């Protein structure tokens, strides 16, 4: 049976996140396409989850009692691939296959192609429903495995998300945590312009979720929030993490242009300097 997390302290998690950031930018630059912004905003939490909490086994990716991580905003695939590399699921060569013909690192995370990926995403709004299914099945099995679903803040605009939010409370699903990456930006522009989401925590709370807000780039807060979510009983937990889209690369930070665009050569070199 696998262990929870990798037994790492905060400073080790922080340097792991930095290595992941470099791999995210490398992957996107390498193929000239992909989504750096939402990968960089999510990566500290992904590092917290895989480095501190998730019980998964790279020698046995389909182990039935593994915790499930569901990346609902599947375009943030470079983030997922970089952390699966740290956790031993993917090799450097796999990372270089990003978006290439036959590669395990498809454009959007895909459970048919990539070991360690539990959900085929790419169409926003579907992951929470899937996570609820995984959690209900865990309860039926009498298993202590848990499900963790990451949603984008633009993604919250999909009606299906709120169908899921409602049903998780109705079924008192307490082996499920949602993490909202509240970076304030979606595809075309800022959420403020596209579709205002107002107070996300209040929305989840009004449906009956336990909610915690954190700075998603403060590793101590990330780890605390994960531990908090584990303690929540009687219903689902939601961590709303305030983040900066493109975090760690100056010209990508809070810039809607780098939702789905690759850096040019000069920008790539600058990013690598900033992330060294």
């Amino acid at each position, binding site marked *: 049976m696998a262990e929870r997390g990798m037994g790492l302290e905060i400073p080790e998690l922080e340097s792991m996140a930095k290595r992941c950031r470099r791999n995210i930018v490398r992957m996107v630059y390498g193929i000239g396409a992909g989504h750096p912004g939402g990968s960089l905003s999510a990566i500290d939490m992904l590092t917290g989850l895989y480095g501190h909490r998730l019980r998964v086994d790279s020698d046995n990716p389909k182990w039935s009692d593994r915790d499930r991580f569901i990346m609902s905003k599947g375009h943030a695939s470079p983030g997922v691939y970089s952390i699966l590399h740290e956790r031993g699921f993917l090799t450097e060569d796999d990372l270089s296959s990003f*978006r290439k*013909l036959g590669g395990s690192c*498809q*454009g959007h995370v895909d459970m048919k192609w990539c070991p360690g990926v539990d959900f085929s*995403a*790419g169409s926003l709004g579907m992951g929470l429903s899937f996570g609820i299914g995984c959690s209900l099945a865990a309860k039926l099995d009498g298993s202590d495995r848990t499900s963790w679903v990451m949603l984008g803040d633009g993604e919250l605009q999909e009606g299906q998300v709120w169908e899921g939010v409602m049903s998780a409370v109705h079924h008192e699903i307490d082996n499920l945590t949602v993490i909202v990456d509240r970076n304030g930006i979606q*595809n075309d522009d800022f959420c403020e312009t596209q579709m205002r989401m107002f107070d996300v925590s209040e929305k989840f709370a009004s449906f009956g979720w336990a909610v915690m807000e954190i700075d998603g780039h403060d590793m101590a807060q990330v780890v605390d929030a994960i531990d908090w979510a584990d303690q929540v009983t009687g219903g689902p937990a939601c961590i709303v993490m305030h983040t900066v889209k493109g975090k760690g690369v100056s010209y990508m930070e809070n810039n809607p242009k780098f939702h789905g665009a690759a850096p040019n050569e000069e920008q790539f070199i600058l990013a690598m300097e900033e992330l060294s």
Partner: protein
Amino acid sequence: MSAPSGGGASRDGYGAALLEMLDDDKVVVLEADLGKSTKSCLFRAEKPSHTVSLGIAEQNMMLVAAGMSTSGYVPFASTFAIFTERGFEQVRNGIARPNIVVHLCGSHGGIHTGTDGSSAQSIEDLAIYRTLPNMTVLHPCDDVSAKALTLALRNHDRPSYMRTARNKVPRSYSDESSNELKIGKGYVHRTGDDVAIIACGVMVNEALEAADLLAKSGIQATVVDMHTIKPLDTNLVTELAKRCGALVTAEDHSIIGGLGGAVAECLVSHYPVPLERIGVQDRFGESGGSDELLEMLNMKAKNIVDAAQRAISRT
């Protein structure tokens, strides 16, 4: 047209046509956070008052468009082809059933969309929208014809679905020839009596290339751009069946239910002749370059040539 001489992507033609309708205060444009991709962003920049941003919520967009339509507006709503499917039942019950004029555009259709991978590559949109009564289904091949057909929709009296493509291909039309385009009438690009290749979208270019290759081995092919999948130009298909005796369809779509399916249905009812269908063979796509994927899925000009020879040998 702004696209470089290398060719044009049909989605650019959609954006250009919307710009031509700026003076028309009845035209409204609806977006679901993909305006930069479908090119409705061009209209938004010029006329924000008539552009409605609906966020990442396609199902909602469909009925908002329907409501505006019954209040006298002509809505042009767009997102990726694949995400229009998220609102399919809304289109079926909320738009097609009451026959409300909403023009839906799905960009980034087909495997040609490339490295995004299978979740973004709609290969079933033409098939599903074709099953809806009242719907017109279009799939132009380049920017010039997409512009002409989008403009033609302004006075079209039925709901429509138009699929556009992300990537540029060599142009098949000039501004002049695109003036001859009519919804519901296939456009004959080239005439030959041995075999007819009926294509749509990015495959029109492959079909024209295939006709050149076939001519080198003495086979004369007709090439049709069947930009309207529904209503299908059954007169033209039947005439080609009689004259050429062998047909090939070519589409960046599943071979089930799309252009190939529509032509097959027409042939069995009117004039059965051998038909070979080039397209995606009942599988999902994957990440890769557009051309790499066409190659891997046997959808290049050379595969159309082989299919033409197979169809002829079956006569």
